[in-house]
């Protein structure tokens, strides 16, 4: 007999559960329901899919973190493992923290080996296959309902509200009502078995909370697609690549719903699946040149292919919006894992002297906002805007503030001259800096019978778009593009600065942390962990390149800064040094904190690395100096 769990040992709304399944076995929907039910109980939750480059047969994991305080970054170590994949049993069992729970199918032959492997965990065997044999005649149904049975059992063991789960079944199978009853039945089989044979509930439990508020749970790609829809995109050209594909698919789906002309049934958006990424960005540039808001979405390999065109658009000054949902490097396999490794590729995309505008959203809400803003920025600045998300943010469901839109908002189409404007003018000079912001006025094809037409080329033209190869004209143009870059600094989203360290110490803090994008999910928790150790850090979340003055000031105000990123080479750190070197930003004050193993960065990782750096420094300072003569 196990000793009963004392009330004080029960942990509510704070655990990590890992589902280990075989890809293509229908587990994704059951696991998604698990996370969503907890969300509907008002408890902050996030689910991360770790999947192979494979359609069926390879291992896949779904890791759910439940945290009342809203710390939803990835956490190392699992409290509960649902081990449904024989191939990964060993590694899944080993992932459990001491005292954790292993849920497994006890009707499988592997069960005994599993029990023997660790004695510091609880084994919860459920004879899932056997339970189903008697209930469902069809083998395919039996396979699918396996997932629902463990869902029912977990609901019982973790005290998840069964009514909420059943509502979710209703929602999921609306219109396919015949499927509702068998799903209910499978849930009941699981919960019934747990009630009758497994005795006590787990130490980890879920109880209703009010911590979700009016927030939503959604992935970044869907959010960005909706942002593009609200932001007025009317052309989407793309080529399939994980993890960006779901963005184009979401855009197409929502455009079919919300951009349909009620009378004709025709659509106010063109979605074109191109033959490759070169073509996709070419279409975007052609459409942008001709005045339609256009975007493409891709990942690193696609951005590499688009490089030549990105240079042309920079030099020819054509609005274009590109979403890069970053992944881990080339080829297949690791690329279905997450990273932030396209920073330098994006900012300096292409040949010649180029600097591209980059936006760095950190949440679904920001994916929505920045997607819409990207079109205004691209039109205003007449240049490509790259929005860098990543697999973790893009493909996993995250808790997010709901989407908002200002009914009064008008699209900023930038400096486009109408026929009337042209009629009032004596002279039109496409590339002349009339306003001192580095941005010329443009015209759209067909606007006027005899004014405003010009010939677009990358280089070799003067302020009036006339052909020239004169060195002075080239230099003047390149200098003007730098003025435009300075203008961009004032228009892109500002860095978000949190002076918590400074406040806590009452006097200026000399240490801080710089981070961006999806790292945000882990950062709040990491800062709390450090603070518990007496280390107070100011924090700056960079949201765009080029860097605004606030970035320069923050860096100048701190002697030691940790730049946290999910890549090997400290790309943001390099960029800060390259772009802000003339403002005194020096490499000695910036220290890289890196994780790039393909999983989302965890708070523990950040905490450990920063802590050990600081401890190392302290040891250095204590060490007696040895003078060397040579």
């Amino acid at each position, binding site marked *: 007999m196990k000793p009963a769990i004392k009330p004080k040992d029960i942990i509510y709304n704070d655990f990590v559960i890992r589902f280990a399944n075989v890809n293509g076995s229908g587990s994704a929907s059951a696991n998604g329901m698990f996370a969503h039910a907890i969300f509907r109980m008002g408890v902050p939750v996030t689910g991360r899919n770790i999947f192979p480059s494979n359609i069926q047969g390879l291992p896949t994991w779904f890791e759910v973190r439940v945290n009342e305080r809203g710390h939803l970054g990835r956490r190392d170590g699992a409290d509960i493992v649902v081990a449904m994949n024989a191939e990964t049993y060993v590694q899944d069992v080993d992932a459990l923290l001491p005292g954790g729970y292993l849920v497994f199918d006890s009707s499988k032959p592997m069960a005994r080996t599993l029990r023997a492997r660790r004695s510091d965990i609880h084994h919860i065997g459920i004879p899932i296959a056997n339970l189903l044999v008697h209930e469902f005649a069809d083998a395919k149904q039996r396979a699918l309902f396996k997932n629902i049975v463990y869902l029912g059992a977990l609901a019982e063991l973790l005290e998840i509200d069964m009514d909420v789960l059943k509502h979710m079944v209703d929602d999921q199978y609306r219109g396919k009502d015949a499927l509702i009853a068998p799903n209910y039945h499978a849930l009941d089989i699981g919960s019934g078995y747990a009630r009758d044979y497994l005795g006590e509930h787990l130490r980890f439990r879920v109880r209703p909370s009010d911590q979700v508020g009016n927030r939503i749970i959604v992935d970044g790609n869907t959010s960005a697609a909706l942002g593009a829809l609200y932001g007025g995109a*009317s052309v989407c*050209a793309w080529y399939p690549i994980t993890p960006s594909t779901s963005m184009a698919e979401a855009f197409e789906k929502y455009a079919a719903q919300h951009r349909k002309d009620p009378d*004709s049934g*025709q659509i106010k958006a*063109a979605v074109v699946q191109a033959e490759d990424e070169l073509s996709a960005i070419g279409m975007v540039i052609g459409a942008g040149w001709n005045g339609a808001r*256009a975007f493409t979405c891709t990942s690193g390999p696609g951005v590499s292919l688009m490089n030549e065109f990105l240079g*042309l658009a920079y030099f020819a000054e054509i609005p274009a919006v590109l979403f890069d949902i970053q992944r881990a490097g080339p080829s297949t396999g690791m690329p279905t894992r997450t990273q932030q490794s396209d920073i330098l590729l994006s900012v300096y995309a292409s040949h010649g002297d180029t600097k591209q505008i980059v936006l760095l959203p950190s949440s679904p809400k920001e994916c929505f906002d920045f997607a819409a803003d990207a079109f205004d920025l691209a039109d205003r600045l007449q240049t490509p805007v790259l929005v860098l998300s990543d697999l973790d943010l893009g493909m996993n469901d995250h808790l997010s503030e709901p989407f908002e839109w200002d009914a009064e*908002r008008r699209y900023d189409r930038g400096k486009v001259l109408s026929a009337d404007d042209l009629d009032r003018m004596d002279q039109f000079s496409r590339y002349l800096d009339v306003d001192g912001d580095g941005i010329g006025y443009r015209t759209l094809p*067909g606007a006027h019978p005899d004014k405003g037409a*010009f010939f677009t080329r990358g280089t070799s033209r003067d302020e009036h778009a006339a052909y020239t190869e004169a060195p002075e004209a080239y230099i003047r143009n390149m200098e003007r593009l730098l003025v435009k870059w300075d203008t961009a600094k004032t228009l892109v989203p500002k860095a978000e600065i949190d002076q918590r360290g400074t406040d806590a110490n009452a006097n200026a803090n000399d240490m801080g942390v710089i981070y961006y994008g999806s790292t945000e999910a882990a950062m709040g928790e990491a800062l709390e962990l450090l603070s518990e150790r007496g280390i107070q850090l100011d924090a700056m979340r960079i949201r765009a390149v080029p860097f605004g003055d606030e970035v320069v000031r923050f860096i100048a105000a701190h002697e030691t800064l940790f730049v946290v990123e999910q890549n090997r080479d400290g790309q943001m750190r390099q960029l800060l040094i390259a772009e802000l070197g003339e403002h005194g930003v020096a490499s000695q004050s910036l220290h890289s904190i890196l994780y790039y193993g393909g999983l989302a960065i965890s708070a523990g990782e950040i905490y450990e690395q920063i802590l050990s750096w600081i401890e190392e420094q302290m040891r250095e300072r204590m060490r007696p100096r040895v003078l060397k003569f040579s």
Partner: protein
Amino acid sequence: MTFVAKPTARHPSLKINEIGLTRRDYEGSVSTLCAGCGHDSVSAAIVSACAELGLPPHKFLKISGIGCSSKTPNYFLGHSHGFNSVHGRMPSVATGASLANKELYCLGISGDGDSASIGFGQFAHIVRRRINMLYIVDNNGTYGLTKGQFSATNDLGSTSKRGVPNLYEPIDLVSMAMQIGATFVARSFSGDKRQLVGLIKAGLMHRGFSFIDVISPCVAFNNHNGSTKSFAHMRNMQREVVSADYVAPQVEMQIDYAAGETEDVTMPDGAHLRLRKLHSDYDPHDRLHAINYLGERGREGEVVTGLLYVKSDTENTHDILNLVDTPLNSLDEEDLCPGLDALESINQSFR
């Protein structure tokens, strides 16, 4: 560029077209190509065709890739916007531009290097996609702008200026286009102005994707004895099978051909394509026949020209994508932004 008031005096010899303009109004900047380059004749034919059709000279999209040929959009239709884009990628830029505003005439200019080598993929896919445009390749069998390397349309055994024979099989863009489903496919010769102007007019007015491969000799690098893309070779070996012209709705045109079988193909706007068959054994409505014919005559060293295949009443990209009639680039917030109520229900769907 300063707007210069147009001189009101007009040379009496300049004909005025339907919309009160002369050929001059369709011209562009002065060409910087080599004197005698075939590409300049193609530009001149475009000017004539547009003037004869009486189309508004500012209602064109002129898109090109990179090469001597791709420079030419600067030399015609000076009142229209042009875009000298990226080597081999004109088709994608034209696709985007055409999607943004379907009301403009989309004219793509490319070279044989541009379309048959670096841009072969984009060429194939724009044909499949059926953009409503006229796609012209100025085909000289060589890379003019990079000084005379063989291109992929250069015939096996045709020699370079230094007498070195080409060792590879050519790609025939015309056969390719027919194979992939183009609905207007022609080949012409820059030295045959009458034929070329007629084909350009017909191609511009064809609703759907039109392709014209124009043999356009490069006087600098590929106009010598031994080249199959020289003026002399074309004059000897050209075999015109079907000529074409555009007949506007309600206009009965005087045909000045002496004899031959003519056929009118009705176009969706009520106009006609007037075809004149110069070889009774050729049928421009049978794709497979056309492809075979080209192959057979090609084996004899002949270059078959004229309107090689046509099919009217076809869908283009706008129809396939079921796009609204309003040009996408003139949709505003009213049309594009789904609004607050929709957003609230979207938010609700994520709870």
